[in-house]
C-alpha cells in the first residue's frame, strides 16, 4: 500500500469499496431482499435528510478520531489493534473524572467548560497509559503487539464492564450504567439540533487531525516515529532509541483514542454503559486508516465514507428487514480488498482500464 502513488491509492480505495458494496448487494439479493431498495435505503440513510446527515457526521466524527489513532501507529510500523480498548478506557476515565470533580466546581457554563477540559484530559491520559502497556511489552519483552492489544481490548471490556455493573454503577440505576454527567457538561448544538451530535465535536476531531499531522511531519518525535517504522536500522544508527520510540508511538496513538473516548462519552452517551454493548469504532477504525493509506489527512474522507455506511446501517436497522450486521461484513470486505492492491493492478492491466493505475 505504501509504495503506491496517491492516485493509485485513491483508485484502490474506490475500487475496494465498490467491489465490497457489489458483493454486499449480491448477498442481499441471495438472502431474498430487493437489492435496489437496499441501495436506495443506503443512500437515504446516509444523506437523505437533515437527520441522516447529522447522524452521518456524528459517526464521521468518531471515525476521524479513532482512524487517526490507528493511522499514527500504522504509519510508524506498529500495529495498534487496541484502539477499541484505549477508546473504552479513555471514555470511562472521562465520565468518572467528571462525576468526581463536578461537586468540587461551580455549576454553570464556566464549571461546565472546566469539566469538559479536565474530563477530556483524563481520557487522553488514560488512553495513552493503556496503550503504553503493549508498547512497553513490545519494546522490552518482544511481545507481538497485534495480539497483546487485542487481548487488552477484551480486558478493557471486562474490567470496565465489571466496574459499571458493580462498584461504579449509578445510584438507583437498574441498567449497568454509571450516573449521568451533569446537564451543563455538554457540547453546544450548532446548526444541527441533535441530542448526540454537535458540530463542536466534529471541529475537535478536525483540530486533532491538524495537530497530529503537524506532529508527524514537522517535529523530531514524529520524524523518529516514521523513520523507525520504515527504516529501523537507519533510525538506530542516527541515534533513535527504537524501544522508546515504540512506547511513544503507542502512547501517542492511545492518547488520540482517548480523545475519541472522551468525545463519545460527552457528546453521544452522557454516561458510561457496559462496553460490551458499545459500538466497535476502534475496529472499524482499522478499515478507515487503511483506506486512507494511514495518512492522517486521508482519514477525513475515509471517515466520511464509513460514517455514511454506519448511518445507513442504523437507518436500515430501523426501516427495513435487512439485518444491519451486513454493513459490518461489507466493512470487512473493504479491508480485505484494500489489503490486496495487486488484485486491482492485475485487473487493470488485464482489461486495459484505469490508465492512472497502470
Amino acid at each position, binding site marked *: *500500500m505504501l509504495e503506491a502513488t496517491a492516485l493509485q491509492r485513491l483508485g484502490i480505495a474506490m475500487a475496494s469499496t465498490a467491489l465490497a458494496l457489489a458483493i454486499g448487494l449480491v*448477498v442481499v439479493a441471495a*438472502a431474498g431482499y430487493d437489492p435496489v431498495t437496499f441501495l436506495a435505503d443506503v443512500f437515504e440513510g446516509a444523506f437523505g435528510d437533515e437527520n441522516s446527515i447529522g447522524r452521518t457526521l456524528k459517526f464521521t466524527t468518531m471515525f476521524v478520531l479513532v482512524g487517526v489513532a490507528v493511522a499514527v501507529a500504522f504509519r510508524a510500523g506498529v*500495529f495498534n*489493534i487496541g484502539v477499541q480498548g484505549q477508546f473504552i478506557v479513555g471514555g470511562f476515565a472521562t465520565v468518572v473524572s467528571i462525576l468526581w470533580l463536578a461537586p468540587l466546581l461551580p455549576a454553570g457554563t464556566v464549571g461546565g467548560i472546566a469539566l469538559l477540559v479536565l474530563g477530556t484530559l483524563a481520557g487522553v491520559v488514560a488512553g495513552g497509559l493503556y496503550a503504553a502497556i503493549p508498547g*512497553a*511489552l513490545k519494546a*522490552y*519483552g*518482544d*511481545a*507481538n503487539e*497485534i*495480539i*497483546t492489544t*487485542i*487481548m*487488552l481490548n*477484551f*480486558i478493557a471490556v*471486562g*474490567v470496565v*464492564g*465489571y466496574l459499571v*455493573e*458493580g462498584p461504579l454503577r449509578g445510584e438507583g440505576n437498574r441498567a449497568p450504567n454509571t450516573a449521568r454527567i451533569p446537564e451543563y457538561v455538554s457540547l453546544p448544538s450548532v446548526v444541527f439540533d441533535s441530542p448526540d451530535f454537535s458540530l463542536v465535536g466534529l471541529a475537535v476531531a478536525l483540530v486533532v487531525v491538524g495537530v497530529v499531522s503537524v506532529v508527524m511531519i514537522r517535529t523530531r518525535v514524529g520524524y523518529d516515529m516514521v523513520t523507525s517504522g520504515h527504516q529501523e536500522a537507519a533510525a538506530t544508527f542516527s541515534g533513535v532509541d527504537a524501544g522508546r520510540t515504540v512506547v511513544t508511538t503507542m502512547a501517542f496513538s492511545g492518547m488520540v483514542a482517548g480523545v475519541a473516548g472522551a468525545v463519545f462519552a460527552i457528546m453521544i452517551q452522557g454516561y458510561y454503559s457496559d462496553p*460490551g*454493548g458499545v459500538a*466497535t469504532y476502534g*475496529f472499524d477504525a*482499522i*478499515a478507515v486508516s*487503511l483506506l486512507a493509506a494511514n495518512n492522517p489527512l486521508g482519514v477525513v474522507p475515509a471517515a466520511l465514507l464509513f460514517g455514511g455506511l454506519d448511518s445507513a446501517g442504523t437507518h436500515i436497522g430501523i426501516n427495513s428487514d435487512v*439485518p444491519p*450486521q*451486513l*454493513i*459490518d*461484513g*461489507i*466493512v*470487512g*470486505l473493504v*479491508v*480485505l480488498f*484494500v*489489503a*490486496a492492491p*495487486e*488484485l486491482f493492478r*492485475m485487473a487493470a492491466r488485464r482489461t486495459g482500464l484505469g490508465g492512472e493505475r497502470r
Partner: protein
Amino acid sequence: MSVAGYVERNRLGIGGAVATILAALALAVAFDLPVESIVTVGFVERSLQAATPIALAAIGGLYAEKSGVFNIGLEGFMILGAANAAAFVWLIGGESPTQGDLWLAIVAAVLVSLVYTLLFAVLLVRYRADQIVAGLAVWFIGLGFGPFSAVLIWGNRNSPGLVSVNDLTVPVLADVPVLGPILFDTSPLVLATAVVAVVAWVFLYRTRYGYWIQAAGENPEALDTAGVNVRRVRYASVLFSGAMAGLAGAVLFAHAGSFTGTGDTMVNGRGWIGIVAYLFGNYNPVGAAAAALLFGGLDMLQIQFQTAGIELPNRLVNLFPYVAVVIVLTVWGSTRMPSAVGESYETEE
C-alpha cells in the same frame, strides 16, 4: 546463549512470570483456597472440552505459519465455522436435530470453510495481499456475516438451543477411577483432537511433505530449486489452517449446543488465543495442544471458584485467559518464527 544474557533480554517477562506466581500464591494463602475442591475430575474434563477448539485452530495456524503464511484470520474463520455449523444443523435437522445431523453439519461447515479459505489463500499467495491486514479483514467479515446469517435464519443474533454432542462412553474403561471419566467418558471431539495433534506432529516432522512445509517457510528458494512448487505447498497449508479453524468453530458450537452472535460472538477471542497457543508451544502441534489446555483450564476456573465458594466477580475471572496470553507472550515473545513468514514468494520463470 548465556543465562545472564537471557535474563537481560527477558527481564520484563521473567519479572511478569514471577509476579504472577507470587500473586497466585498470595491469593491462595489470603483466601485460604481449597485447592482440592478446585482441581477436580470435572474440572479436567471441562478444561479439555474448552481446550479442544483452541487446540484445533492452533494446529491449523502453525501449519500455515510453518509454510511461510501468517494466517491471522483464525478468529474470523472460527466465527464463520460456528455460524455455519449451527445453520447446517438447523437446515438438516430443523428444531430437534439428532447426533447424526450434528456430525453432518460439522463436515459441511468444514467443507464450506475450505471454500472461504481458498479465496483467502488466493488473495494471499497469488495477489500477495498484506497477510496481517487481510487476516484482520477475515475477523471483521466473521463478526459481520456470522451474526448476519443468524439474524437471517432465526431473526436473532443468537440461535435457539439446537443440539450438543453426546459423550462417548467406552464400556469398562470408563469405570477406571480418575482416568476413566476424563478419557473414556467424554466428548468424542476431545479424543479426536488428541489424535489430530499427534498425527499433525508426525506429519510435520516425520514425512517428506512435512519437510516441504517447513522448507517453504524457512527457505523457499531452496525448495524451489529442489523442484517443489512453493506456492502449491503454501496453498495446501493455508487451506488446512482454514479447515481446522472452521472445524474449531464447529466443535465450539457442538459443545455449546447453540450459536451466540452478540458481542464478540461465542468465539470471543479463542482464535487469537490459538495463535498464542502455537507460539507458546513453539510451533509443535503437541505443544500447542498442551498450551491450549492451559488456556482452557484458565477459562474454566470460574466454575471451580463458584463451586468452591470463592467470591470473585465472574467478569474478572473470565479475563484470566486473556491476561495469561499477555504474560505468555511477554515471556515467550521471542520464539523464532520461520524466516520467510510474511513474504510472498515469486518463482523466477
